[in-house]
Every structure is written in C-alpha cells, then in structure tokens.
C-alpha cells in the first residue's frame, strides 16, 4: 500500500518528519517497506531566470545566456532552442551531478566560452522524457525556489505492508486514524456529504444472491462531462504508481486508496434493464478492462444487466460498459461483496486488481453509502451533471459484536501496566465505543464497522499494547531448567545426531537435499505412490516425496563429478516418506560414495562394497546395534545391484542395506557407476533397553591367553561365506570369541564349482588353560557345525 505524505496530511494534522512517521508506523504495526523521496535527487536544482540570451560567437546552435540564479548572475552556455530572455527554468550549479547523464558539472569552456553552470531539460532531471528543450517553469516562480516543489514532486511516497487483518489500512484514512491514536497528530474527520437526488434513476439495481453480494448501492449521474482529471488528482495517482485515465475512472481509483472503498463506474448508456448482482452461469463470459476474456462460473459473483455480464463483482469491470471520455451518463456502483468468494474467484481468474485486493480482505460494509455519496459529490464537482436519488439493496452483515473487556487482561496477557483511562483513550482514538459494564471496572467495547478483525479481549489487548508501544513491555528473567532433565531429543533424533558425528568422522560430508524428487526416480526406489505426489510441485523434477534420500544424493554426487569434483562421499540423515500417514515418515541415514580415486604412488585396492559395508557396520555399532547378531539378507530392492549388494537384518527386520547400485537405476538417474551406498532405517533399530542404572555391567577379563586355530573348508560356490563364519562362531559360545575369514581360494586342489574358505578361530578360555583334549573337542564341534550349516568338506 502506497501513499504520499501530503495525502496523509489530508486526514492527519501533523508536522511530523518522514523519519518520525516511518518510526511511528513501524511501531504501530504498519511495517514500512520503502520510502521514496522524489525530491531527494532534485534537491540541488533551483529556479533561475534567463535575463538575456545571445548567439554563441563560435557555434550556431549554442547561446550564451546571462542567468539570474541563487548564486548571483551567471554566464551559462546553453544549446536548448527554447532558451530565451525571461524564461524561468532549472539551474544546476558547478559541482552538481545531473541525474539523467550522471555527469558532474565542471566550469570549462564550451567552444571558447566558459559555462558557469547548466540549464536543464526534463529528461536531464529524469522528471519526464522531454530532451528537446529546457524546463519551462512558472514565470512567477522566485529565483532559487525548489524545482522539485515547482514540479509537485516534493512529496515523499511511503510504501508499507498491510497485514491481512487490517483492510482499513488499505485507505489513507485508516492509516491516519491509527497514527493519530499513536500520537503523531490529530485525525481530521470529514463527514460525507448529504446528496439530494433530482431524478429517479432509469437504471435499477437488484441483488439475486445476498450471500455473494450483501449490499449493492448506486447513483446515476446524467449530463456530466468526463475528461482529464485536475492536476492534483493526476499527481496523487501518479505518485503511487497509477496511470491517470479520466475523471470518472481516476475518482474510483482515488477512493480505493483514500478510503479503502472500491467503486465502479458504468457508462449508463450501455446498460440495459436492471443491473443485478448474481451468480455466474455456465457458458457466460465477458471481456474485462484488462482486455482479456474470462469465462464465468456459478461460483463467481457477477454484475450483469438484462443483456450481458458487465463484470466480476468486486474484482474487475468489463470493457463494454466501462466509462470513457465520451461518457455523459454514469452509474456509480458501491457494493459489499463476500470476501471468501472474492478471494476464490480472484484466484481462479488470476486477476489482481486493487478492488480484489480490498474486497477479499473484507472492507467496511457501512462505507458503501457514505463513500458512494462522497465520490458522487466529487464527480459533480469536477464533471458537472445531476444526480439521481440513492439506490440501495441488501441488508449487509450484522455490526461487530460488543466485547466484554476486563482491563486487567492487559497486564495478564501483555505483561504491561496501562491505566484504565488510557485504555479507554486508545480504544476511542481507534474508533471503538466503550461503556462501563454495570459500574464495575469491566468495559463493554464495541468495535467500529471497519474493525471486524476484533472479536475478543486478546484483540483489544493487542490494540492497547501496540498503540502504547511494545517497547513498554518489560522483559522477565528467562527461566533456567531445574534439576534433572531427561534428554531433550527423542531416541530417533539423538541417533541422527550421533550418526552425523560418526559419519563426518568417517570422512563423509553431510548434505541436506530436498524432501522431494522426481516421481520416476521415486519409482526406482520403491516410492511414487499417488498419495505422495505433489498436486502443485514447484517444478516437474520435484513432484514427489522421496522414498529415500539416495536418489538425491546419487544425483548430487554425479553433479559434483560433472563439475570436476569426483570421489564425492555424501550422506544425509533425514526423512524418507513411505505414505502420507503419521507413521509413514521414517528417519533414515543414506550414504553415497561415488569413488573416483586419484592415482597414488602406493597402489591401494579400488574402493568396493566392502568399504561401505565396513562404514555401515561401524555406524551401526556406534548406534548401539548388536552387530554380532546381524544376519545378511539378499538384496530386496530393485535399485540394489543383484549380485553386489545386500541387506542386514536383526531377526526378520531389515535394518540396513549396502552395496552397489543397480546399473539400470544409475542410468535412469543419469549417473555413472559404480556407486557404493548404504542406508540405515533408523526407526527399525531396536529401542534401547531401559536400564535401572547408568552403571555398566562389570568387566570380565580372562587371566588365560587366548589361542587360535585355523580351519579350511571346501564349499559349493553358492555357499555364503557369512554362513560359514556364523556356524563356526556359534559352535561353542562363549569360548569362541572371534572368527576371521582370511582366505578364499579357487583353483588347483579345489574341484570346479567349489571354493575353499579358510578361517582363524579365536578361543578365549575363562576358567583354566585348555588342554589338548579340550581343544580337539572344540575343533570337532566347529567342523561339525560348519558342515551341518553349509554342507562343507573340511580341507586337509
């Protein structure tokens, strides 16, 4: 919302500076976004009178002028054809920077004659586009007078944010009222005129749907003469960025901004029969003032006569019936439209007009008739003509309900102390009526018709606190948490925090990527359900909630590689979405390593899935998962490489997946492989057991040396090494503490289709040194267990 300082002064008697105004507005809740002072850049330019103009001795198109300036008589060289004795124009002294050219003036000879200043055109001052001659100012203007003022450009423009609850701030009057209450000046009340109609309007009005249009008022003016608006009106509109058109249209725009009262003017000669507010009908359409044709629907409130749709109520009128310079008979509409319907219609049509902006915020219904009369009076003043008797249909909404208000609520809620008399004073200044409730200190407060946002005591407390000043609210000492506190974060959240630290110390960079991805990528990772597709995505490639962070990370790794930074090690500890229910959002840890190792003098094996498996297990162990109880699972996701990936499960529940990504998936993601990944489903991890004490169980250390024994088995190629290890370690617990698989051999001595696996078993005796017989017994158990589990043959 924009207004100028002089416009504000129509309604507020004040001698405020712009700085004080801005401060008062901000502290009263009218957040100033910009102050534009057109006079600022024109400040150095003053009026000067050309006393004489003579031809330049060395140039045909130049004149040498003697000019009376604020700095005394100056000889100035000028190329303008209109430079002549007696002309009052804009003067710039040496040292001035010209806005249009950016050049700073120096006293230097122009074809041999020194010019001691400059006479300026409108283009040079950027006040208009006229570059053909110097400005011709009012000849009565005093030498040294401000050019900005002479051009009517000395009025600062204030642009501020209107919060959605305050439609009354969409009029300068509403701004003035709040600023008066805030102590910036005195509010100037201007009663609306009483207009007596001299004829009955031949055009009648009606409301067909009173929920869509609760009030419809109108006047007809006949015999008027439209044309360009007077300078003051044009200047006002221009200052806030509106283009003046003709008096009738300009007046409706003026009232929109002056009193937050949208109006519409029809050329009455184009109207047929009754003008009515009704719902649209399927198949109807009309051409609006913006030149576009809109289809009308039964959800929209239209204004129509017997022949056609004239406009969408409260949003935009039609081109056909609009007022033009030729209009002599006009119908002025002032109506109250349902805000919600206006909002929805506005969104459906995409029309953004000043009328929509106001009507959808809910304007003052009680202003329909008085502001109609005020506007009509202005038309009569500027265009002449005679006015019809008033027309008004509809009842309008009930007035705002009175609020029972205990002044103590101010202290209870705002924490500030305001005297009861001051409370009443503030409320009255804002237009509220107050009455004591039955002798008690309680008040009955009735909001004015333009403050339908005020519904209860809390709203009144805000009014009082904001006018009194939020800076008067004292700050209480902040509390300190008392005594023992349980962990502030949930188990899941804490695990993510731990995981971040662990992964960062393992060399991975944490990324935060969108919660959405492209639907076809979601499909690849088991997502893409209809319920998780965005109805209105920000772009087509971010149209679905991600079932995993992996696709985003794989693409990010590839992007880094494309930029020349291969070997990306990324992770994200964040959500994945499996459905739209509360329980369908999962905490996950996704890790992506796209290895592109640099060559190194000490050749190391290329990173492979065992590198990420190592990190995955390290992280699981950090997260207190009983790693020894984990079992391997086959790849169960289509994005996993069928032969170089797997899962880890605790019991039947998969808690992690690791390995290479399926080449087909990589191709669909436009990524090059191999890409090594793992993913931990944090919510599937076992809950930590509640323990009665923080103390750890006692440490048991054996006094006896551990010893090792090696075994080798020949097994079928398809037997998983993990099964051999599991069988061995489970053969005699807790005596066997570790099984290390140290060799995988295929070749001579091992039949085709088989492989030899060699393990080193660690035994840790606890009670006594093991005798040979004990060791033989354990060895037999190990061999038996492995044979039973895998069908192995022990290798001699």
């Amino acid at each position, binding site marked *: 919302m924009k207004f100028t300082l002089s416009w504000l002064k129509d309604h507020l008697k004040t001698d405020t500076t712009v700085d004080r105004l801005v401060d008062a507005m901000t502290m009263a809740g009218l957040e100033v976004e910009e102050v534009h002072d057109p006079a600022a850049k024109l400040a150095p330019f003053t009026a000067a009178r050309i006393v004489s103009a003579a031809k330049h001795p060395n140039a045909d198109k130049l004149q040498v002028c003697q000019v009376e300036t604020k700095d005394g008589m100056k000889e100035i060289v000028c190329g303008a054809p209109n430079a002549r004795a007696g002309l009052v124009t804009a003067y710039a002294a040496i040292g001035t920077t010209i806005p249009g050219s950016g050049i700073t003036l120096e006293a230097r000879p122009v074809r041999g004659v020194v010019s001691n200043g400059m006479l300026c055109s409108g283009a040079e001052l950027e006040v208009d586009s006229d570059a053909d001659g110097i400005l011709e100012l009012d000849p009565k203007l005093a030498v040294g007078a401000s050019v900005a003022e002479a051009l009517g450009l000395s009025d600062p423009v204030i642009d501020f944010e209107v919060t*959605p609850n305050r439609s009354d701030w969409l009029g300068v009057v509403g701004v003035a009222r709040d600023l008066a209450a805030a102590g910036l000046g005195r509010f100037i009340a201007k009663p609306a005129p009483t207009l007596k109609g001299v004829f009955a309007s031949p055009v009648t009005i009606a409301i067909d749907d009173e929920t869509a249009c609760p009030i419809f008022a109108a006047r007809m003016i006949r015999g008027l003469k439209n044309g360009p608006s007077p300078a003051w009106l044009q200047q006002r509109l221009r200052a806030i960025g509106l283009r003046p058109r003709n008096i009738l249209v300009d007046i409706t725009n003026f009232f929109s901004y002056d009193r937050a009262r949208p109006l519409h003017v029809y050329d009455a000669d184009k109207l047929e029969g009754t003008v009515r507010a009704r719902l649209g009908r399927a198949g109807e359409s009309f051409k609006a003032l913006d030149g576009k044709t809109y289809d009308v629907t039964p959800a929209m409130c239209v204004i129509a006569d017997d022949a056609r749709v004239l406009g969408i109520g409260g949003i935009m009128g039609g081109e056909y019936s609009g007022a033009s310079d030729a209009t002599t008979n006009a119908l002025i509409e002032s109506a109250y439209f349902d805000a*919600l319907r206006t909002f929805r219609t506005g969104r459906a049509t995409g029309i953004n007009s000043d009328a929509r902006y106001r009507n959808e915020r809910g304007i003052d219904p009680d202003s329909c008739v008085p502001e109609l009369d005020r506007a009509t009076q202005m038309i009569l003043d500027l265009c002449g003509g005679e006015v019809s008797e008033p027309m008004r249909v509809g009842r309008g909404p009930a007035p705002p309900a009175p609020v029972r208000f205990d002044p103590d609520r101010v202290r209870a809620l705002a924490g*500030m102390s305001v005297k009861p008399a001051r409370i009443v004073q503030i409320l009255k200044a804002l237009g509220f009526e107050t009455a004591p409730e039955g002798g008690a200190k309680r008040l009955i407060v009735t909001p004015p018709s333009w403050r339908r946002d005020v519904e209860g005591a809390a709203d009144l407390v805000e009014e009082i606190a904001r006018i009194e000043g939020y800076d008067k609210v004292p*700050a209480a000492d902040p509390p*300190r948490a008392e005594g023992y*506190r349980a962990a502030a974060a949930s188990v899941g959240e804490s695990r993510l925090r731990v995981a971040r630290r662990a992964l960062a110390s393992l060399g991975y*960079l944490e990324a935060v990527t969108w919660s959405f991805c492209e639907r076809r990528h979601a499909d690849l990772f088991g997502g893409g359900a209809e319920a998780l597709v965005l*109805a209105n995505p*920000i772009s087509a490639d971010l149209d679905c909630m991600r079932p995993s962070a992996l696709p985003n990370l794989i693409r990010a790794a590839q992007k880094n590689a494309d930029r020349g930074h291969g070997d990306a090690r990324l992770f994200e500890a964040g959500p994945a979405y499996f459905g739209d229910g*509360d329980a369908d959002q999962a905490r996950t840890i996704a890790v992506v390593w796209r290895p592109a190792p640099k060559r190194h003098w000490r050749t190391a094996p290329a990173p492979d899935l065992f590198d990420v498996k190592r990190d995955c297990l390290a992280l699981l162990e950090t997260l207190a998962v009983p790693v020894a109880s984990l079992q391997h699972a086959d790849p169960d996701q289509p994005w996993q490489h069928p032969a170089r990936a797997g899962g880890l499960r605790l019991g039947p529940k998969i808690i992690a997946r690791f390995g290479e990504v399926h080449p087909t998936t990589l191709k669909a993601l436009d990524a090059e492989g191999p890409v090594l990944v793992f993913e931990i489903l944090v919510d599937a991890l076992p809950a930590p057991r509640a323990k009665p004490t923080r103390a750890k169980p006692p440490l048991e250390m054996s006094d006896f040396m551990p010893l090792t024994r090696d075994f080798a088995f020949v097994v079928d190629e398809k037997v998983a090494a993990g099964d051999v290890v599991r069988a061995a370690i489970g053969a005699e617990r807790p005596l066997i503490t570790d099984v290390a698989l140290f060799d995988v051999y295929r070749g001579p001595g091992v039949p085709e289709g088989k492989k030899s696996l060699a393990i080193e078993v660690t035994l840790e005796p606890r009670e006594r040194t093991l005798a040979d017989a004990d060791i033989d017994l354990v060895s037999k158990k190990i061999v038996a267990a492995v044979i039973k589990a895998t069908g192995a043959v022990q290798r001699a």
Partner: protein
Amino acid sequence: MDAAVNATSTSAPDVEALERELTARIDAAADEAALEAVRIDALGKQGLVSGLMRTLGQMSPDERQIMGPKLNRLRDLVAETIAVRKAGFAEAALEAKLRVDAIDVTLPAPRFYQGAIHPISRVLEEMALIFGEMGFTLEEGPDIETDFNNFTALNFPEGHPARDMHDTFFLGRNPANDPNTDDPASSMAANRERKLLRTHTSPVQVRTMLRQPPPIRMICQGRTYRKDSDATHTPMFHQTEGLVIDEKTSMADLKGVLMAFVKAYFEVDAVEVRFRPHYFPFTEPSAEMDVRCDRSGGQIKIGQGDDWLEILGCGMVHPNVIKKCGLDPEKYQGYAFGMGVDRLAGLKYGMPDLRDYFGADVRWLKHYGFSPYLLPGLAQGIAT
C-alpha cells in the same frame, strides 16, 4: 709394551703407561676384529694385563698391597672400554644397515577424508541446546500434515488471504483437491481432510496441546515447505518454534526468553532488540522481533550499527487456537514463537545464498560444514 715387559723384570711395572698404551690402541681400533686383537693382547691368557696379574704372587706383601688394586682397576677399565667401543661398532653397523632401506617420508600418505556436518544440522542443535537450558522439551511431528493441524487449528480462517501468505504444497492428485476448484463449499470440505506439506512447524504445537495437559514448554524443529523459490526463499526450509502454555505466562516472559536466546545464539552480550506489532492468525497480540545490525560493508553484523533486522515472529497464543486444541482459553494462556533456521544460520555463519544450502556441492559442504569433534556447548561458547 716395553714398559710392561720391563715392569716384570724390575720391581714396579709402569701401570699408568700400560693403561695409556692400551687405551690408545682401543681408540685406534678400526673395527671389531682390531678391537678383539687388543682384547687378546691385553686380557687374553697370554695378555699383558693377565701377565702382570700373575706376577702379583711373587711380590712382597707391601708391593702387592699397592699393585693389586692398580692392576684390577686396569683390567676392568680395559674390559669396559672395549665393551663400549664394541657397542658403538654394533650401533653404527645397524644405523648403516637401516639407511640402506631409506624411505622418502615426503611421499604423500594415503588420503584421509575429512567429513563435515551440515550447518543446518549444526544450528538446529545449537538452538535446541539454548532452549533446552531454559527448560523446553523437543517435540516432533511429521512433514506431511492435515489441513486441520497446519491451518484450521491455528485459526487460519477458511479461504482467508492469510492462507495465501503460505503457498502450500498439496499432496495427492485427487481432482476434488484441486485448489482452483470452482465450488467453495466442496473444496473446503475436501481441504479439511487433505494432506499437505506443513508450511511451518506449528502443527507440532497443535499435536502437543492435543496430547498433553499444560504446563507445556516445548520447541519443535524441522523441515517446512512453501511453494516459493527465489534468492531469499527455497521451497524447503527449516524452522524452530517454541510454545509455552500455562495459566499466567505473559508477553514479558516471551520477551525475556527471546532476548536470552538472541544473546546465546549470536554470542553477543548486549544485543539490542525491538518488538514490533505484526499479524499472525495464531497469536494475539502478535509481534515480530528485530535485532540491531549493521549493514554497511556488505555483510550483516549483529549487535552493532543503526539498522534493524527482523529475525522472528511471536506472540501470545490466540484463544481460538487454545480452544481448537482442546484447552480452556479462559484458564490457559501462553506464548509461541517461530524462526527461520536457514536465514539465522546464514547470518551467524556467513552463508550468503540460501539456495546453496541444498545443492550438496562438496566445495560448499567442506567450506561451511562443521567438524564432528567441535560440539556446540553453552559453557564454552555455542559456536566452538
């Protein structure tokens, strides 16, 4: 040698001369073999020192009294000097052998990957820590929410322009959910059940109020979404919000907590703040909080200068919200606040462009990320 030989024949052999001679020979020995030759000459069965020792028996008791200790000392001295010299040879031999296997230690070691924690995670933890110290619990809720939790319970009127301020992402391609549907009534009914991406973390406040009785003192943090994308807006961003509900908490308490937060977060002791009236559907009175800042020189500095920077919105919880969340607004009151984590992170740690936060560019992550070993803590400074 002559002296020693002479000593046997004369009455008092010159032990000192012999010592000088042997020491010189030991020092002159070039290798272990030469050293062994000296040892045999001196201490061998036929050696000089051994020979002199044998003469002791023929000496008078008085002579023996003098020569005995002298010769013993000489024998020990020669043996020890030889041993020291021998150890020196062994050491030198080992040293020489080690140098044969020399390795250029300036060769690069295998690469160590330095990981980092994203600034957003870092700042979320900092905030949780600060509010945790003031007794706030951390509550959680899902990103996919209902219209009720995100809007209706928070006193956003149906179809009110205030909802337009939140450009909401809706889920599901159900045609009844088309936001541009013509029929207000049917679209409103559909909206109530409709799933959307939360536009703020406030639904967690709603869930908490619906779940537990006051007193409530909580924060919530996480991802939030609005359909907005430019230099200062990303379609996904993060918030930290707080809620206190009891029977007497006022705006004065709100002010105190937020001022304490700003000091702790920005680590500036005397940062000036300002509360301005604002509008939010869910609070009444509502305010925005500005902090003093300096914008000169391109970067924003908090706590100095003559400019203001808006950092959060807050207010007293609207009675309608308290009511919609199943509590009695006549009995309970309290405050709520909410802040944009991404921007506050950028202000503190100097990340200039919000859009880079979610680009996963390894250069950005390395530069702006945090070491996993430097944890935020109130005692030693939140940013160490």
